């Protein structure tokens, strides 16, 4: 059950010119949120941006004791730029929580899972890491970006998962290993790491490479996918991806969390 409500800006934390965390009052969306859920946020009353924008609910937390939703945002255009500039207390229309969350209910305390993040794809993995930690399920993080500035929420991940379980890759080598996050993951698999499931979010090339890796390793995956969205709740049919069964599936309703084996990557 999603809710259409007005949430107040509690705080905006800027990491650099391109990245920030937006904290909104949790409303009734907070308690209903599971890792992998997203929300549609209207950035202001005007016509630019016109449609709401989709953001993963990165965390359900508190700001100075007030229940809050955290969104981790990368500025790429008019909407993500506008959202960074609202004063504390500004009410913003929010629809959420939306979509199919990461499948985690079937995990056992003895299971070990992998979290794979590329760039801003860290967002849905924060609440996942928190939830897994609370349930005592071991998780290894593989997190890649262009450089050190792209690697966000490091203290949280290391607190939830243990710093020895967090591995980083950057294109320029400014943090962790130089190279791609999929290289890190390949390396771990080659070293004998075995996982019940890999949870991932990142850019399309990362998803493609990871899909092949998972298939070769006969490993189950759950990807938090992105697509341009007009509505976010399955009515515009704008956000579809081609599926292996020949259909087009809406990412907002049948996703965003989808098993990569269900997607037809050749037509995407």
């Amino acid at each position, binding site marked *: *059950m*999603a809710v*259409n409500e007005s949430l107040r800006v509690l705080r905006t934390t800027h990491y650099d010119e391109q990245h920030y965390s937006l904290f909104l009052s949790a409303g009734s969306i907070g308690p209903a949120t599971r890792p992998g859920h997203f929300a549609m946020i*209207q950035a202001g009353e005007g*016509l*630019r*941006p*016109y*449609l*709401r924008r989709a953001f993963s609910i990165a965390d359900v937390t508190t700001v100075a004791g007030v229940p809050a939703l955290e969104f981790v945002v990368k500025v790429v255009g008019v909407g993500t730029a506008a959202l960074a500039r609202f004063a504390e207390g500004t009410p913003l*229309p929010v*629809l959420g929580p939306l979509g199919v969350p990461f499948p985690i209910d079937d995990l056992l305390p003895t299971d070990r899972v992998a979290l794979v993040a590329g760039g801003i794809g860290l967002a849905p993995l924060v609440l996942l890491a928190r939830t897994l930690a609370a349930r005592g399920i071991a998780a290894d993080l593989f997190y890649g970006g262009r450089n050190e500035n792209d690697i966000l929420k490091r203290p949280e991940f290391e607190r939830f998962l243990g710093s020895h379980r967090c591995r980083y890759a950057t294109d320029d080598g400014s943090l962790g290993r130089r190279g791609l996050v999929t290289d890190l993951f390949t390396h771990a698999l080659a070293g004998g790491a075995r996982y019940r499931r890999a949870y991932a979010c990142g850019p399309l090339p990362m998803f493609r490479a990871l899909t092949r890796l998972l298939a070769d390793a006969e490993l189950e995956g759950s990807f938090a996918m992105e*697509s*341009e*969205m*007009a*509505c976010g*709740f*399955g*009515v*515009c*049919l*704008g*956000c*579809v*991806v*081609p599926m292996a069964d*020949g*259909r*087009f599936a809406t990412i907002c309703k049948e996703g965003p969390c989808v098993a990569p084996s269900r997607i037809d990557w050749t*037509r*995407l």
Partner: protein
Amino acid sequence: MKVDLSTPFGRLRLKNPIGTASGTFGYGLEFAEYLDLAALGAISVKGLSRRPCHGNPPPRICETDAGMLNAIGLQNVGVDAFLADKLPELARLGATVIANVWGDTEDDYVAVVERIGADRRIAAIEMNVSCPNVVKGGMIFGNNPDALAGLVKRIRAATRHPLIVKLSPNVTDIVASARAAVDAGADALSLINTLVGLAIDIERREPKIGFTTGGLSGPAIRPVALRMVWEVRTALPKVPIFGMGGIETVEHVVEFLIAGANAVQIGTANFRDPSLAGRLVKELSVWCADHGVARVSDLVGTLKTRPRPDHFFS
């Protein structure tokens, strides 16, 4: 002041003049958690075809200034699945349902309306003769008054439901289309559908939409929609009209009524705010009370225009 929102619409009497537009309201049920479906004047469901339709490959949508382009390609579950899986619940919730239908050929249209038959849970049939996003069909009927008349005649003969023809705005003379539809037996008209547009990713020199062109909707098209409603109302003073195109506020609703629409449909704005249509019903009542309008139908077609000089051509 007690305001009467009830809206005579040909053989129908709508609870109020606020409806929702096909393709922007799913099958209605998706909105049940955000508003009371029974409180709306009517809901027009996603365009139904004879068989389920997968639609176009992505990307299907992009935002444009004050609006969006879409080329969904009329993806839908098909008329059978709609009647079996969606309509019973819509009826239970008390929604006034308009079945929006389309086909690639005349036979396809006929097959859909025959399948609907005399189902009393459907208040009216709305023919989409104007979808710009499928390679065949739709657009031919929308662009050519003779083809349109032929199609409407066949559908008219195939159904006893009130028949609404939804016109394409992608024509030079909207009145010619309107007349053709009404003369062929349409009970009412819906206007407008989306305007064909193009958006370009200049870095890649590619269209932003997979289908290349898409249908433009949202506030950007409102002045065009209003002009067309007014032209058709002026030419055909009696025909019931659903007006739509970029409606976002109660003032926009009133604008369309004054231009000559008997009722309106909310479209793309449902994506921005899924509760909007329900709120507009209440706001319309308040607006009328504040403006001393006892019956909302008294607003319809009340535009006061000045005579135009003979040499004025636009």
